[in-house]
């Protein structure tokens, strides 16, 4: 196991290397000179050249890359074109809102989907099962941006029950109730597709496990049905669900981007979208790299978790 962990983490390094190269190349290929943002075209060309030299833009490209990478991972992500302040300083206050949104959406999705999926599988072909399956299809097929607009027009525009944007009221907001009210719609928008997916997956897993020999054994030794389901069926069905988290992380991040854009949620996704529309390349570069690194780590952890949870899997 230990040697597997070590080998697996060694693979991370070349992957990380290629990721940074791709991001760097992409941004480098972007049209326009970085200096256009700072400098007046009426400036003396000699001063212009001097600034170029001082900013390292005359260096060979691999030196520029090395400079960027080595500074990036120590927290120096450059200066935002748009705000004129260090990217990391702007970014760090926007990470927590995104994490909050994502973890609440995930948590509620798992909490609802796991029991419902199990129930649906145990009562296969019952009206309940059919309803759950139909709803899961709706959930998977519903574009999150449209769901967001529907919720907005119902709860914010027509009924006026929930606020339509932001994390808290601008004036006098910020207490717990206010924050929860702001969270409800974004969490639903981000969590729905995910919940539908897990429900279907859980149902399929339980169906597969349902007729295994050890379930029969558990029943025939006189175990109460409740324990058969919770200890034997669900526990064994949950293993692949855990690893699903790692694989779904990029989808979740993308969902967060859309959700944050709809509700002007002050997180990474919204910041990224604003950065893109303003062509704020340092911001785009930083968040793109960060999202890829997060996904890489997510997959890594999911891989390890799988081996840890499922004793049948042996790494050599």
């Amino acid at each position, binding site marked *: 196991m230990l040697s597997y962990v070590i080998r697996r983490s060694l693979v991370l390094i070349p*992957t990380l290397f290629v990721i940074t190269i791709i991001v760097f190349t992409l941004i480098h290929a*972007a049209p326009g000179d970085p200096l256009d943002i700072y400098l007046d075209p009426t400036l003396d060309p000699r001063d212009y050249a001097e600034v170029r030299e001082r900013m390292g833009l005359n260096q060979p490209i691999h030196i520029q890359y090395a400079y960027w990478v080595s500074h990036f991972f120590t927290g120096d992500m450059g200066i935002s074109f748009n705000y004129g302040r260090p990217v990391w300083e702007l970014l760090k206050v926007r990470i927590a809102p995104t994490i909050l949104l994502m973890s609440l959406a995930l948590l509620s999705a798992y909490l609802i989907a796991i029991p419902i999926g199990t129930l649906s599988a145990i009562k296969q072909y019952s009206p309940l099962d059919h309803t759950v399956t139909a709803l899961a299809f709706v959930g998977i097929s519903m574009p999150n941006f*449209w769901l967001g607009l529907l919720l907005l027009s119902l709860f914010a525009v027509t009924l006026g029950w929930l606020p339509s944007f932001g994390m808290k009221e601008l004036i006098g907001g910020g207490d717990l109730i206010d924050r929860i009210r702001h969270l409800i719609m974004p969490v639903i928008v981000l969590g729905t597709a995910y919940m539908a997916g897990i429900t279907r997956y859980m149902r399929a897993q339980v169906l597969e496990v349902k007729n295994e020999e050890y379930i029969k054994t558990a029943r025939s030794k006189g175990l109460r049905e409740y324990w058969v389901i919770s200890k034997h069926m669900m526990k064994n069905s949950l293993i692949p669900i855990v690893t699903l988290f790692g694989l779904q992380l990029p989808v979740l991040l993308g969902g967060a981007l859309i959700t944050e854009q709809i509700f002007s949620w002050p997180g990474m996704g919204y910041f990224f979208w604003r950065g893109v529309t303003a062509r704020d390349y340092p911001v785009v570069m930083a968040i793109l790299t960060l*999202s890829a690194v997060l996904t890489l780590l997510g997959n890594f952890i999911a891989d390890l978790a799988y081996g840890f949870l499922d004793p049948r899997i042996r790494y050599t």
Partner: protein
Amino acid sequence: MIQEERTFTKAVQYRSQGYFDIFWRQLRKNRMAMVALGVLTLLYLSMLFAPLIVNTVGYDYKRPYVGERNEHPNTSHLFGTDHLGRDLFSRVLMGSRISLTIGLVAAAISVTIGVTVGSVAGFYGGWMDNLLMRGVDVVICFPFLFLAITIVTILTPNFFNIIVIIALLSWTGIARIVRANVLSLKEREFFIAARAIGAGTSRLIFRHLLPNTMAPVIVSATLQVAGAILAESGLSYLGLGVQPPTPSWGNILMGGKPFLASNFFYTLWPGLMIFLTVMCINFLGDGLRDALDPKIAKQR
């Protein structure tokens, strides 16, 4: 002798027809999949004849009718009008051309890439496999929307670029499926036998490996169309897809967001169309999965 050979060919033909028959019979039993197939056929037909239909209805999808802004559905404007007074029915119908075409073409390209990469990696193994699969690992690390948006901003968001971007970012799943299948097929007797007879590389791949891995590929190709449609409309919704005034379902939605309070129908129609299309494709994919895999069908 000649007679005998003829019956033999006939028998073979009959059997290969039989496989399709079984599949079709299975699929027909699935009512949701058949309804979905019907709706999708209708959608694609109306997409093909969109200019004709729009002409018959009598509205130019680009022309603003100034006195008729933000109208709710009525007898002259079936779906109502948008904030510039353009007929929403014509716009949604013309928008289907972008969304449905991008869905189909992007999926076709990405499936081609995926099948190629997967079968090459699985067939040759060794360093080739290693290289290609590490490539897959890298592509998978980028959350789709983040990378797609970045590339769109660097290039220009137009029809062609959107297709290429979606295709280039969504082939990894199929590549992995095909590779895994090829790896296990390579161990099977029929394959070893074919190789022992001296079948060439292309014959081995196209005749023995790929046909046997078609079932999961068809299913994920179907779902890929849904994914591509969602991706396109997501990008368009963010303002980074096909640019207005050319309508696409996503950019009509984006256009309607500020008018949620006054004109609910503006965002309702395009959203409903995306939802309906994607759901039908999902139902069809589910039906195909059951029909193509007899093992699953029996269990149900």
